[in-house]
């Protein structure tokens, strides 16, 4: 009684996504650019590594090496949200403006089946895109660089794919929320894009202003004072940047894919002793330790995705659905 409803809607949503021109276009674009970036990186690696011993974790470099422009992970961090937004921005208000929503809710299905099925179908599409994209690049890497990934590299990639699915699902959840709140599909599309631009690009800028306002870096002769100011300032900037899902995602993925990175922080204050210990222990971090570093980010990503979907669910369940 309950499952047939969610399954029927899920099936229809999947059919809709597969025949949706805009989804196919954005996916084609992202797959194309992703593959181009990875193959450029692969080819330059091939050049550089001629006649040299292959370093550890070379396979992961395919995803993290920046090459000429930016790395694959940076690219997904930047444009991945677009996939989520395109999957979700008209999920509910398309049914509303097509006047099919009132018909749908008068069938013997639970109302949450509608929104759950739409969310699940979107997550399935995101999973399909991400998994196939990573597989294509892995295949390309094996051909170009000629190394087969080790077990640890595979695990790191699996965690990376999970992080990416969560990240894009968060954006889909936000877009579905806008589609519940706004009646017009144009408004919800613009609102999703505005939120994406704000949270991805302007939080960092705002964080800088905020840090300068709270903890200004004054020109002083006193070294200790200047250092303190600098630490405080960058701490505030960092705290503000964690509001941005893109920063969360970027920090998490760069740590999980690069075993040599031991902290997601870009700025670490080191004394002479730390510097010494760092140079003596230049070994990669074991997988488990990388996971421990990434865990807070993973949990935050899960949390914001669920909070977003939860709000969306509550608003939708409380809304009155009229035909006019």
């Amino acid at each position, binding site marked *: 009684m309950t499952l047939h409803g969610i399954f029927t809607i899920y099936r229809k949503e999947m059919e809709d996504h597969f025949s949706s021109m805009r989804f196919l276009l954005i996916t084609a674009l992202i797959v194309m650019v992703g593959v181009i970036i990875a193959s450029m990186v692969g080819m330059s690696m091939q050049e550089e590594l001629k006649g040299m011993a292959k370093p550890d974790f070379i396979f992961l470099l395919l995803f993290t090496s920046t090459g000429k422009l930016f790395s694959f992970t940076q690219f997904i961090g930047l444009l991945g949200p677009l996939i989520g937004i395109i999957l979700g921005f008209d999920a509910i208000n398309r049914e509303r403006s097509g006047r099919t929503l*009132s018909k749908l809710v008068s069938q013997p*299905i639970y109302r949450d089946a509608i929104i759950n099925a739409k969310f699940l179908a979107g997550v399935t599409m995101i999973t399909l895109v991400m998994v196939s994209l990573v597989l294509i690049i892995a295949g390309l890497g094996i051909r170009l660089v000629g190394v087969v990934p080790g077990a640890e590299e595979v695990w790191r990639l699996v965690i990376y794919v999970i992080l990416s699915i969560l990240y894009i699902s968060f954006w889909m959840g936000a877009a579905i929320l806008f589609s519940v709140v706004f009646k017009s599909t144009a408004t919800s599309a613009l609102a999703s894009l505005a939120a994406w631009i704000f949270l991805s690009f302007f939080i960092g800028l705002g964080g800088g202003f905020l840090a300068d306002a709270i903890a200004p870096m004054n020109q002083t002769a006193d070294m200790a004072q200047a250092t303190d100011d600098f630490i405080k300032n960058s701490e505030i900037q960092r705290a503000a940047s964690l509001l941005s899902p893109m920063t969360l995602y970027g920090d998490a993925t760069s740590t999980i894919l690069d075993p040599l990175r031991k902290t997601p922080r870009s700025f670490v204050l080191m004394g002479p002793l730390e510097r010494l210990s760092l140079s003596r222990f230049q070994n990669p971090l074991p997988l488990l330790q990388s996971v421990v570093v990434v865990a807070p980010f993973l949990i935050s990503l899960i949390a914001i995705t669920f909070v977003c979907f939860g709000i969306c669910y509550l608003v939708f369940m409380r809304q*009155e659905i009229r*035909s*006019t």
Partner: protein
Amino acid sequence: MVIRMEELTKRYGAQTAVDRLSLEVREGEVFGFLGPNGAGKTTTMLMLLGLTEPTSGQVRVCGFDPARNPLKVKALIGYLPENVGFYDDMDARQNLRYIARLNGIPDRVSAARIAKLLEEVDLAKESDKKVGSYSKGMRQRLGIAEVLVKEPRVVFLDEPTVGLDPDGTSRMLDLIHSLSRDRKMTIFFSSHLLDQVQRISDRIGIMIKGKLVAAGPLAELAQRGLGGEAGESYSLEEIYMKYFKEG
């Protein structure tokens, strides 16, 4: 009694959309719910369907409370909203099959039923065209087919003839009438047009500004509308206008 409402009230903030409505609809009858736009007809229907909760009062549809047991009620009733929408990029058959699936009807059962229904509403020839290309009249008839695909006991039709041309209206009314005659379904339909309600209803209710001002068979209403002046025949229109002015 298939539908029973007692002191049913719905308020939106300070505004009362439906005010202490008490009404009963019997099994197998065609009940015409008459009233000007904004009288609270749609809100009443939404409460009967369990799509909105009443502020106070009681509703029973087929013995169930739609606010508590929405799924049971929705399995037994069919609802055609005003200006019903379809998935325009699917054809008529696909639209009907989707609704059948949502009702848990397997495809092998629904296929024959859908073919028969499309024949009945005179859309069999156009059933492979995308619904987006349908005219208003065709969409309304497809709406009726969609309501019938789950074989409901009670059918709610909200303004089923609005926006149709005279020929379309006439076909629609005949179709509604045949549901009650041939399938013995209970029909609860709303309209703001008197002559239509008059033509096919067994009983009518007149709602004005959230209040049910009169309910009963037309002859009885006419009697009451007449008051003491026996012998004169009043049309429903005169009664309607009389209540309308009073309300």
